[in-house]
């Protein structure tokens, strides 16, 4: 499947960049004319993925986060990745309510939110190498 449009973004792992990444994804996906609710789903999922890179991937240290966005006729694929610490046990990380940082009052619901709001998510991660989240969303036909 050939994307009809494409962008790639790279930014520092600062919490101030979470809102920026969310708006950048929303502004780009708006080209597909989604509904408000579909756009909110995208924004929430991007927020969760980027926050995970900042807090878990780089543990609030400095690093670069990459986000790419491919648009298709009626769908979008968004990839968010870091080169941080990686995930030891992906199955466990996916469980609702599981968090490795309960001391930070994390809810452990990030991946569950992404799975609920997007049509498909894929987690690729290697300890010490980093984490890539691929999220796919189909939009209601016009």
């Amino acid at each position, binding site marked *: 499947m050939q994307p009809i449009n494409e962008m790639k973004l790279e930014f520092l792992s600062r919490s101030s960049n979470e*809102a920026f990444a969310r708006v950048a994804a929303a502004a780009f996906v708006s080209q597909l004319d989604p509904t*408000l609710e579909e756009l909110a789903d995208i924004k929430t999922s991007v927020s969760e993925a980027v926050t995970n890179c900042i807090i878990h991937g780089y543990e609030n240290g400095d690093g670069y986060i990459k986000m790419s966005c491919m648009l298709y006729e009626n769908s979008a694929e968004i990839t968010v990745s870091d080169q941080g610490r990686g995930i030891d046990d992906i199955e466990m990380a996916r469980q609702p309510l599981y968090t490795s940082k309960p001391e930070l009052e994390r809810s452990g619901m990030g991946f569950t939110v992404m799975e609920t709001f997007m049509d498909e998510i894929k987690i690729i991660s290697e300890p010490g190498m980093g984490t890539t989240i691929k999220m796919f969303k189909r939009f209601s036909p016009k």
Partner: protein
Amino acid sequence: IGEIKRFIRDDGIIKVSRSLKEISNKARVTKEIMSKELGREPSISEMSIRLNIPAEELVMAMEAGCSPESLYSTVGE
């Protein structure tokens, strides 16, 4: 809220373009009011606090109202 939900369902779907335009109109009015109050242009964060919308979101919404070839202005209406 029930009212709003019913409206959403009856109407099918609310397009992003429309909601952004509403925020954009609100922003324009707020900017005028604040300029008079302050005797200068408000900054984006002052507007963001007044409208209770994150600065980045406000920037995106304002795009909807200002340019004929904007991403959001024509589609779906």
